[in-house]
């Protein structure tokens, strides 16, 4: 695009680069005025460029448009801003207008993009192609159409998909789902690995907050995101027992110590090592993994998966020292570490704090699970076991106890079932396996006999109302129960293992480390802390998110860059799920969830084996196919890799600009009638009922199907009907006006159809044939001469047959009257044009006057075309009344003369 400096003022602002806006910009530019042309779409050209041929001369719309589009692009006096919107126009006290506008982000650096389209084929997200009126698909990464000016790619992004937005670990599920859908499994895995390591762990043991946020969950049920991940991870690991990469080639020379090898420590190590730092993990236990190894029962996370995940980290050169207890941070400093990341995790369980809580047979959850995982479980076989607590850890303990052969397992929880912090499906699974819930009971005391636990004395308990965990509890002494048990597992909270450093860094009362929430830096500048150390007990994904965040800031710290002044993660705002769901509901058929197959309950609790089978390839792809592409672009970054010019910039954001203009031309065009408003015609419901604009695409040489075919089955139509006045001259849709172009464009399409399908029958149902312009009546005669049938009678309704043909009901007005029914195999609705009222909203101080139909008025239509009620604001083309192309061009040129006169009026300042 021409590079007119953006800073200075313009003589004219033209809004809308359709045929009228382009004409106006060019003629004003030719007269020597400085023009800013703003277009909301990614290319200039408006609607005309979408047409096949244009009446009455049947010349090619593209051939007429493209030279004008090119001229607009290169005119020295015209700056055209595509993919941009005017937000507000206000009058300036000194004259002229102040214009606020927004350049929407294309996520492609226009200066670098060469229009080569290599981003298109690699993009896994299909989008209905607006250029083809949704008849065909395009990709989220695309060039608007082949003749686009400028010919630059655009990524369609509506925001961040809820799944990706929600993930605390920074994983972008939408991306790998889109890639799995496309069959690009390895790419999917690699994309995940770029965002977060521990892919296998997450695929088994993550609580998948993404699934809760999945828009499909609001419809038929969530996409099984974790299932897809597991499929992709299992498949990848089977094919790649070892990582595909080694340590980075360029090293920073900086050393980092990471204390603890749980999820946050491992994640931080991964990212820091990738950044070229030398990373050592110091783990006190004999084996690495922290809670991943000791806290999660293997029916949820097999150890082999963890081992393979660890390789993704060690392959980068990360040193893992186990059995090392770190006692002092200062010591690490003197050992030569430039920075420390403290991620010791929560190792201690809290005690019950009631009498008898130290009896034999009373365990804390951490210890219990550790022993289970260490293959040295306490003997609970044949005993009644009570697990105290309502969280996920409690569930893990209860289900493990079942698997160890416990007779009955009770889950005792102080509050109601609704208040249980464990995930609903975990509770469901536990119940399914036979765990008894004892909600609204509190432990009064543990009753022992001979030093061993013998029973639990329970007392009624309930929250005092409202929802949430913070509600106060009240004991209900009227309810008491004694539960005979042989083992009690307390799963009522964990404490972080930060006490060794209490003298060196600041801690909170609950034992967590005080760290700046954004940077995770502690009171010792070289020490950062994260995961449970900061958050308290938290999920794997949360901890990994902390590790990633810490790595980002530790890297900055090591590079000597200010920690502040940057944003760690800056996603686009989350898309509105309700809106996506509503759109999905209107059209798409239901897509039912594809659940992962599971073992029968009996087999499940017999051992610690993985009870859920992975999804098969078909199941994984079926699930991926259920993705609604909420954010449109999935952030899979395939385009980034494919672009030879390095032009893709996912971080691009909207740019706002304020300019001045001495005058404004509104060339905002029309909006087509939505044929769904006419349910009797079945558009949107009957596949072979299409609109005139769609027919134009089917007839255009650049047509989507490369032949004239009907949508339902690709059959060549042989009997086509045109239904005129769809949405025009119709009180029932609130538009009594004539849309002026539909008779002519239908006849044009009829002629083109007869040209490509000479044997087809074509019928045009009309009220009046409005062939009024120069050469139009002649065109009408010519159409009649081509044996196109014209039937006087508006179509009343359209009904489908079993084979997707259409029965068209009408009155044969001139043939004696009465209802007739004709069978056609394709019906084209000649949809009308409606005013586009958007421009009226741009003027906060008072919009130009509009008429009763909501078109912008020309108060003196006869003598002052193009002038609105506001001095200096002009209107052209269909923004003021529907016009055909020749009339739009004449009107635009006329308005240009008016603008010129306004700019040259006596006393006007340049």
């Amino acid at each position: 695009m021409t590079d007119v400096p953006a800073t200075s003022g313009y003589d004219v602002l033209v809004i809308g680069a359709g045929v009228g806006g382009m004409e106006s910009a060019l003629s004003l530019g030719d007269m020597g005025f400085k023009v800013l042309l703003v277009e909301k779409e990614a290319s200039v050209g408006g609607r005309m460029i979408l047409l096949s041929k244009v009446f009455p001369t049947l010349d090619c719309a593209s051939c007429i448009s493209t030279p004008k589009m090119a001229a607009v692009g290169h005119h020295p006096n015209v700056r055209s801003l595509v993919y941009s919107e005017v937000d507000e126009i206000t009058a300036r006290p000194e004259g002229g207008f102040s214009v606020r506008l927004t350049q929407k982000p294309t996520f492609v650096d226009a200066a670098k993009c060469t229009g080569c389209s290599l981003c298109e084929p690699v993009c896994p997200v299909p989008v209905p192609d607006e250029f083809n009126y949704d008849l065909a698909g395009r990709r989220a990464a695309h060039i608007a159409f082949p003749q686009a000016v400028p010919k630059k790619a655009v990524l369609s992004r509506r925001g961040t998909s809820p799944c990706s937005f929600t993930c605390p670990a920074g994983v972008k599920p939408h991306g790998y789902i889109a890639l799995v859908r496309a069959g690009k499994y390895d790419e999917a895995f690699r994309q995940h690995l770029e965002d977060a390591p521990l892919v296998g762990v997450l695929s088994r043991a993550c609580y998948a907050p993404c699934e809760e946020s999945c828009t499909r969950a609001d419809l038929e049920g969530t996409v099984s995101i974790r299932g897809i991940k597991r499929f992709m991870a299992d498949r990848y690991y089977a094919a790649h027992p070892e990582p595909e990469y080694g340590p980075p080639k360029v090293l920073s020379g900086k050393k980092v110590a990471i204390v603890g090898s749980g999820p946050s420590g491992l994640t931080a190590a991964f990212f820091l090592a990738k950044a070229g730092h030398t990373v050592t993990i110091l783990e006190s236990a004999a084996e690495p993994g922290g809670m991943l190894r000791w806290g999660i029962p293997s029916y949820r996370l097999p150890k082999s998966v963890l081992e393979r995940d660890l390789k993704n980290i060690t392959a980068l050169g990360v040193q893992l020292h186990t059995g090392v207890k770190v006692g002092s941070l200062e010591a690490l400093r003197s050992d030569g570490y430039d920075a420390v990341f403290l991620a010791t995790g929560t190792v201690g369980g809290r005690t019950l704090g009631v009498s008898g809580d130290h009896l034999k047979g009373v365990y804390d959850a951490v210890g219990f699970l550790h022993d289970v995982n260490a293959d040295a479980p306490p003997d609970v076989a044949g005993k009644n076991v009570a697990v105290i607590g309502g969280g996920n850890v409690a569930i893990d303990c209860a289900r493990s106890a079942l698997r160890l052969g416990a007779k009955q397992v009770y889950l005792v929880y102080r509050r109601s079932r609704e208040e249980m912090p464990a995930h609903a499906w975990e509770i469901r699974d536990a119940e399914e396996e036979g765990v008894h819930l004892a909600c609204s009971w509190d432990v009064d005391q543990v009753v022992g006999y001979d030093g061993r636990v013998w029973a639990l004395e329970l007392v009624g308990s309930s929250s005092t109302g409202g929802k949430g965990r913070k509600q106060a509890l009240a004991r209900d002494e009227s309810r008491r129960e004694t539960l005979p048990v042989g083992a009690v597992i307390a799963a009522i909270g964990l404490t972080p293992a930060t006490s060794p450093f209490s003298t060196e860094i600041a801690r909170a009362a609950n034992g967590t480390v005080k760290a700046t929430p954004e940077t995770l830096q502690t009171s010792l500048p070289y020490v950062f802390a994260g995961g449970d150390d900061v958050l308290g007990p938290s999920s794997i994904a949360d901890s990994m998110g902390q590790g990633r965040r810490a790595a980002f800031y530790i890297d900055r710290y090591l590079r000597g860059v200010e920690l502040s002044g940057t944003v760690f993660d800056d996603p686009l705002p989350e898309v509105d799920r309700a809106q996506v769901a509503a759109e999905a509901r209107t059209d798409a058929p239901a897509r039912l969830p594809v659940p992962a197959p599971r073992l029968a309950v009996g087999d499940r609790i017999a051992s610690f084996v993985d009870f859920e089978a992975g999804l098969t390839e078909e199941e994984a792809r079926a699930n991926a196919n259920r993705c609604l592409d909420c954010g449109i672009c999935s952030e899979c970054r395939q385009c980034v890799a494919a672009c030879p010019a390095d032009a893709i910039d996912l971080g691009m954001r909207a740019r706002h600009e304020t300019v001045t203009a001495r005058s404004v031309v509104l060339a905002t065009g029309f909006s087509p009638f939505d044929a769904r408003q006419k349910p009797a015609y079945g558009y949107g419901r009957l596949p072979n009922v299409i609109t005139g604009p769609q027919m134009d695409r089917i007839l255009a040489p650049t047509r989507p199907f490369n032949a004239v075919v009907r949508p339902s089955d690709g059959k060549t139509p042989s009997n086509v009907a045109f239904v005129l006045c769809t949405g025009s001259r119709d009180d029932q849709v609130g538009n009594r006006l004539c849309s002026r172009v539909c008779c002519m464009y239908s006849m044009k399409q009829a002629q083109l159809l007869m040209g490509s399908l000479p044997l087809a029958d074509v019928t045009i149902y009309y009220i009046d044939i409005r062939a009024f312009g120069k050469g139009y009546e002649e065109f009408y005669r010519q159409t009649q001469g081509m044996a196109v049938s014209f039937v006087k009678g508006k179509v009343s309704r359209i009904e489908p047959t079993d084979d997707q043909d259409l029965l068209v009901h009408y009155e044969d007005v001139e043939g004696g009257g009465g209802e007739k029914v004709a069978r056609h195999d394709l019906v084209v609705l000649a949809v009308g044009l409606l005013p586009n009222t958007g421009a009226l909203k741009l003027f906060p101080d008072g919009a130009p006057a509009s008429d009763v139909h909501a078109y912008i008025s020309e108060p003196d239509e006869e003598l002052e075309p193009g002038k609105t009620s506001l001095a200096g604001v002009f209107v052209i083309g269909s923004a003021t009344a529907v016009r055909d192309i020749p009339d739009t061009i004449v009107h635009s040129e006329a308005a240009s003369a008016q603008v010129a006169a306004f700019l040259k009026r006596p006393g006007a300042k340049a």
Partner: protein
Amino acid sequence: MLVFSTNAISDMGIDLAGSSHLDYAASVEVISVPCSSGIHPEWILRAIRAGFDGVFIAADGPECSYVSDCVERTGRVVAEAQALLEKSGYDAGRLKMAAICSVCAEPFVHHMRQFGDALASASAPAVG
């Protein structure tokens, strides 16, 4: 094969064939001129003499913004050039013309294939 195309219209169609990765023979080479009504018949003879098997004029058609009867004018050029070819002992079929509009990628490729096939099946070019 030598193609004469036009800056404003048929060039766009041929470009589109390329950007849509529609395959046609690499032996098709293009010279662009402002308007197909301005092609000199001698150029065509020159091309055949210089060794091209055939010449194709990708004409402007009715969209031509210069002359409303561009199709007829280009037709006359073709007729004259064909006469010239025959006089020089070449098959007049070695020159073809069709209107190629700015979105006529498919038709262009189709013409190239057909014309290529026709030229190949014609007897070896006789030099007159």
